[in-house]
């Protein structure tokens, strides 16, 4: 299985290595650097690189490459999934997963990696168990540790690993018993130049933050579970209960976790909450182009569209832009030709717009690519699919927990307006 792990930063330095079997020389990473050089973009490095004796499987997260070295056949997704789990764990422990954070906590990182794999086979990947084994560093604890000389390593041995619910640690105690659920939905849509939707889909997740004492057994039911088309669960969810009654029944892990991610069936028409009016023209022969962009809300059920960010990759021929936003600020990077406009909140009375001119390379012919426009936004307190949580019940414990549910809609990774402009003479 996994032989070794190398962490490589964006400038190509190996800043951490860990071996679970015999030591593999770090020169094996040369193949990786070679592939990295060939790739034009950082994300274009192939995830699997064969070398004469090893295979390198890498993931890129937070501008750090996690390169796993394996020697024999193993499902590549197995390794990739594990590496992502490692990153998630780091993030869980240190808040961020940056080179600096890892370097600062190198001992904890090492201890974690030691626990997560045994001889290259995953051993403990549940964050609840790991936290019992190795306490996450907090400022308070660091201070206490330096004074008293106590350690981050849990004194008592983890019992969770032995229990029937391996994801929950035992003996949890809180004074305030709380359970929060965030329903976050993302829209992914491709819209053509005329404004008609090519594809649109909604993915959602329910992230939970459960801080309940003891061994609570929760059930969560929805008003409209039929909306959920394709779901994947945290292992704690009882599958057959869902199959039979469409109710989520589970003993939650302690702390933050992703309860469920779902896909809203495509039969339901997806209403896109914003629209874009655009007019981007280049004139043949002249070195000027016109740029006009207006945003507006659409079907948001009275909720405000916030944190709007518009970005567009302009054609290579564009030298600079001179634009005038009605609100927010814009930036243009003349090297990457990336235009981004931080709009903020959309006011339905006064629609934000961005107008101005682009200067093109003198003598260059009219660019024939059409820029695509990507929009990011957030809408609080609304799940665009209409999903509603009906109720949350708790069994198994006596106290009354505080329950909270939050809805949010945001643009997915890439909602985009693909423009397909007709050439003007």
């Amino acid at each position, binding site marked *: 299985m996994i032989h070794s792990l190398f962490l490589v930063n964006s400038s190509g330095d190996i*800043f951490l*290595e*860990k*071996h679970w079997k015999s030591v593999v020389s*770090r020169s094996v990473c040369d193949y990786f650097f070679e592939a990295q050089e060939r790739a034009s*973009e950082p*994300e*274009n490095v192939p*995830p*699997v690189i*064969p070398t004469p004796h090893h295979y390198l499987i*890498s993931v*890129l997260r937070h501008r750090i490459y996690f390169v796993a070295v394996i*020697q024999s*056949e*193993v*499902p*590549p*997704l*197995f390794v*990739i*999934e594990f590496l*992502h789990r490692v990153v998630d764990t780091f993030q869980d422990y240190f808040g961020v997963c940056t080179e600096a954070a890892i370097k600062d906590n*190198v*001992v904890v990182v*090492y*201890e974690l990696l030691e626990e997560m794999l*045994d*001889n290259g*086979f995953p*051993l403990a990947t549940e964050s609840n168990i790991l936290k019992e084994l190795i306490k996450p560093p907090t400022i308070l604890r660091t201070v206490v540790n330096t004074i008293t*000389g106590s*350690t981050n390593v*849990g004194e008592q*041995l983890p019992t969770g*690993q*032995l229990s*029937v*619910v391996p994801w929950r640690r035992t003996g949890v105690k809180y004074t305030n018993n709380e359970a929060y659920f965030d329903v976050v939905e993302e829209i992914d849509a491709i819209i053509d130049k005329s404004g008609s939707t090519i*594809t649109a889909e909604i*993915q959602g997740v329910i992230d939970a933050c459960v801080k309940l004492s003891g061994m609570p057994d929760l059930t969560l039911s929805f008003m409209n579970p039929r909306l959920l*088309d394709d779901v*994947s669960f945290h*292992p704690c969810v009882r*599958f*057959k*209960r869902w*199959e*039979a*009654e469409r109710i989520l029944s589970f003993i939650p892990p302690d702390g933050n976790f*992703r309860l469920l991610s779902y*896909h809203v069936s495509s039969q339901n028409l997806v209403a896109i909450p914003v629209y874009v009016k655009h007019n981007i023209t280049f004139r043949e022969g002249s070195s000027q182009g016109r740029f006009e962009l207006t945003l507006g809300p659409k079907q948001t059920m009275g909720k405000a569209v916030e944190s709007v960010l518009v970005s567009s*990759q302009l054609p290579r021929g564009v030298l600079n832009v001179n634009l005038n936003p009605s609100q927010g600020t814009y930036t243009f990077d003349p090297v990457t030709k990336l235009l981004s406009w931080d709009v903020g909140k959309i006011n339905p009375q006064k629609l934000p717009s961005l107008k101005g001119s682009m200067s093109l390379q003198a003598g260059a012919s009219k660019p024939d*690519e*059409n820029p695509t426009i*990507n929009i990011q936004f957030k809408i609080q307190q609304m799940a665009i699919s209409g999903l509603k949580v009906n109720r949350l019940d708790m069994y198994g414990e006596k106290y009354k927990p505080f329950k909270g549910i939050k809805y949010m809609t945001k643009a997915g*990774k*890439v909602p*985009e307006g*693909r423009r397909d402009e007709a050439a003007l003479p």
Partner: protein
Amino acid sequence: MLDSNKDSLKLEAMKRIVAMMARGKNASDLFPAVVKNVACKNIEVKKLVYVYLVRYAEEQQDLALLSISTFQRGLKDPNQLIRASALRVLSSIRVTIIIPIMMLAIKDAASDMSPYVRKTAAHAIPKLYSLDPEQKEPLIEVIEKLLADKTTLVAGSVVMAFEGVCPERIDLIHKNYRKLCNLLIDVEEWGQVVIINMLTRYARTQFLNPNANEVLLEEGEEKEFYGSDEEEGKEEKVEKKKPYVMDPDHRLLLRNTKPLLQSRNAAVVMAVAQLYFHLAPKAEVGVTAKALVRLLRSHSEVQFVVLQNVATMSIKRKGMFETYLKSFYIRSTDPTQIKVLKLEVLTNLATETSISIILREFQTYIKSMDKDFVAATIQAIGRCATNIGEVRDTCLNGLVQLLSNRDELVVAESVVVIKKLLQMQPEQHSDIIKHMAKLIENIQVPMARASILWLIGEYCEHVPKIAPDVLRKMAKSFTSEEDIVKLQILNLAAKLYLTNSKQTKLLTQYVLNLAKYDQNYDIRDRARFIRQLIVPTDKGGALSKYAKKLFLALKPAPILESPFKDRDHFQLGSLSHLLNVKAGGYQELPDWPETAPDPSVRNVEVMDAVETVLDPVLAFRQVPEWTKSSSREKRKEKKKVEKPFYSDSEDESRLTESADSDSNTGSGSESSSATEESDSGSKSEDSGGESESEQQEKPNRKADKSSRAQRVTQETGDSERSSGEERRTAKKTTEPRSESESEEEGKESSSESSESESESETESKEESEPDTEAKRNAKKKAITPRAPDKPREEKQEVSLLDLDDFDLNPSPRVNPVNSFMSSSLVADLEGLSLTHSALPPPTISPTFSSLKTYELLHRLTGEGLAVGYCFGRQPFVRDPHMVTVQIQFTNHMDTEARNLRVREPRLQSGMRIKEFPEIEVLPPGETVTTVMGIDFCDSTQAANFQLCTHTRKFCVSIQPPVGELMAPVFMLENEFKKEQGQLMGMNEIKETLVLGEACQSDYAIVQRVTAAANVGQVPCGSDQEYSSTPPPCSPLVSRFAGKTMTSNSLVLVTVITKRDRTAQLTVNCEKMVIGTMLVKDILHALSQ
């Protein structure tokens, strides 16, 4: 600092050392100092020392020995976690001297009390194996032992060890196969991946190909499959055409892996997907598509791997992803490698219907700024054009338009693709060639230039004027061209010389001369070759007359194929598949066996192993209303099972909820059964069989034997009906077994070739009963080696009659139902004492033998084909809202009826039909039964559809009696009363009636009601309902509960019998129409 007395200083030192290690600096000089601290009390120091040891012990073997004694002490620690960690470090230290110690430690740990330590032992096995491969044999023994472990904790790790050490020892899996399948859902996710991959390989060696028939058909067209020995071949073909019956173990695997598609772990989902791809019948592979598409929203690395696999799958099973076409649309922010893969998938998915939208997408992609991607898109268009003839012209036109694109790369790529397309039909497109000839002045990309030249040369007859001119221009720039272009210039010159030597003779000479002094030897070589070939010389040149043939031969058009075409011989999801190269340690996916190996090897002989195996299956499969009914058995089983599985926890919690009432009714029904024993002795075992131990059961059974045989032959049915209720509760555990039993029964009975099934079964039963298990097995084994094919086939024949399709449900024929019932009953009785060989199939069989058969098609109207149907009363497996309709075809014709299937259903809105699988051949005189599901939407409207044979169509309709639109629900009396209280008023219909002659006894009432409607009786706290002499004065109450199929609304039926042969019937149902109709039906049934 390491020598200090203070732990904090030691810790600080260790932390620095670890930091050094992390940075890759060599810290091995400190080894002696560190090793001393291995016995340190501080846990963190200890852990860091372990980390250090594992890293450097290999380099400093002698010094590492100093630490061994500490670990040995640790191995004996009372705390399981310390034992485990000691073993872990001990086995991680790669020091060859301690191999014997490791071996001992592993052996000890493998039989440790704690499953966690056993898990660590499993982890240690591959470590030791990699250190010393000679330990293989003893390690295999340990693996074998650990494989038998029943805890989920160990399962994943030990399979991992198995894969690492002895993947070829498939025989070790046999005994544990079913256990692994059943545990699978509770194993931790990483273990799941490993187990699923291993089981895929296992299944490939043990089961028959579910798609064998189709494969045969496909291959039969291409080549004579059994060409060499024709007669045998034919025979085999005929045999194969027989409906394929999936091995129940095979089905078990598929069923138990399916819920894992919902896993959050991409690797698990992929593993299940590949399992389905490699093992499932074609029709079922589709279920994985949705989950795979879901993975496309994950991290880009995951996408990359999944798309690779989807690309391979989409070639073989196009239909699978068609509905998800849009999910493969490319987004501008995708990395290029993802874009190219998505393009690949889109191209594979293109069909006549979808091509237009795909092409429109492609058009947008061409305008992308990512040039590699644009090039890939153009190639994809080319492939679409070659694969789908209709759009070839459109594509070609589009590509020609691209020729005027400003981007040279785009143009070049289009030229190359156009060249390939033109090769297919050059005649019609001479203007395109002309156009391209003009382009040559502008295009600089060598590959494109070469392509144009080749085209002009190849089709110089279509462009007689332009070709020499192009050659002239090329001759001018010859020296500055790239090598491939030069070669093509030579080619062009030679071809022109042959066709049009008048104009081009001098030019050719010139070009050849230039080439003669070229730097590249290939070009010089080619020039020399061409000169000799085409320029007539004095020396004869025997070849020159063939020159024309050589150069101007018709060339076959190239076939544009997907690079993923032949990748599926690698196991999907594997590294080898991804790289298309065999990776080290890759285990080939074996081909399906021609005949299935003996399935009995998977039989588990140990009694309680079966119990544990059954337990999770049941827990997993149960529909909620059953869980309570089975809780009694559950509880008993739980005592036996050492450690409850996670999936049970739910039931457990439920159990506590209803514990009080449950125990009441439990004892109640048991006592009631006791009173009834006078009627039929069988019942005592129905309930007794669950609770009593094997030894107690045996004498009982002997005593019952005669009465049972009698009952079976006479088939009075009464006893069965009366026991129906209990059976229903007992069914949970016994039924699944009984079916498997009946299957085995069938095997035996057919081998004895007796005439009537029911008789033979009882006979064989009696015969085999005294046999011990061992004998039984021995007998089976004795048959198998003699004719390995035979038992299987016979079994198939029998199962044709008895278990038509394992997945659906058994025996719909009215007559055989009895025999089936009896066999299942017999099996019930024996259930526990026998080897529970097969797995429990998913259905409950009909409780009552009184299935009414209706006529669908009379044999006269059907021209010899008679079709009857009855309502099976089992839940339809594939859709809980559907009513199961069993259809029985009998062929009274002299010829075969072929291709029986359903067509053109004309349904009321909302109604749905799940058709039965097409019946390919029905030989004359034979009878076949199949099952379809119909969702009637809780109405008695008929479902109309056409029944087609290969020659005729018949319009038929199935109209359900209202009683069949519901399914029984198990509820307790107080629940019943509560529900009834909520369904008063409009929803309640009361009717008084006079009971018919035959309806005096309570059995009769129960039987009549349940025959009229598919409802379940509500057990009553008192035993009065069952006792044959009701206490005077007190009215007798029977309650029944059911729910409608589609809307799940409750249907509650109460019959209160009074002394004077009158009775009051009450029906409570939310749906008044159903209620009214039901009252009518029951009234009719009771007053007859």
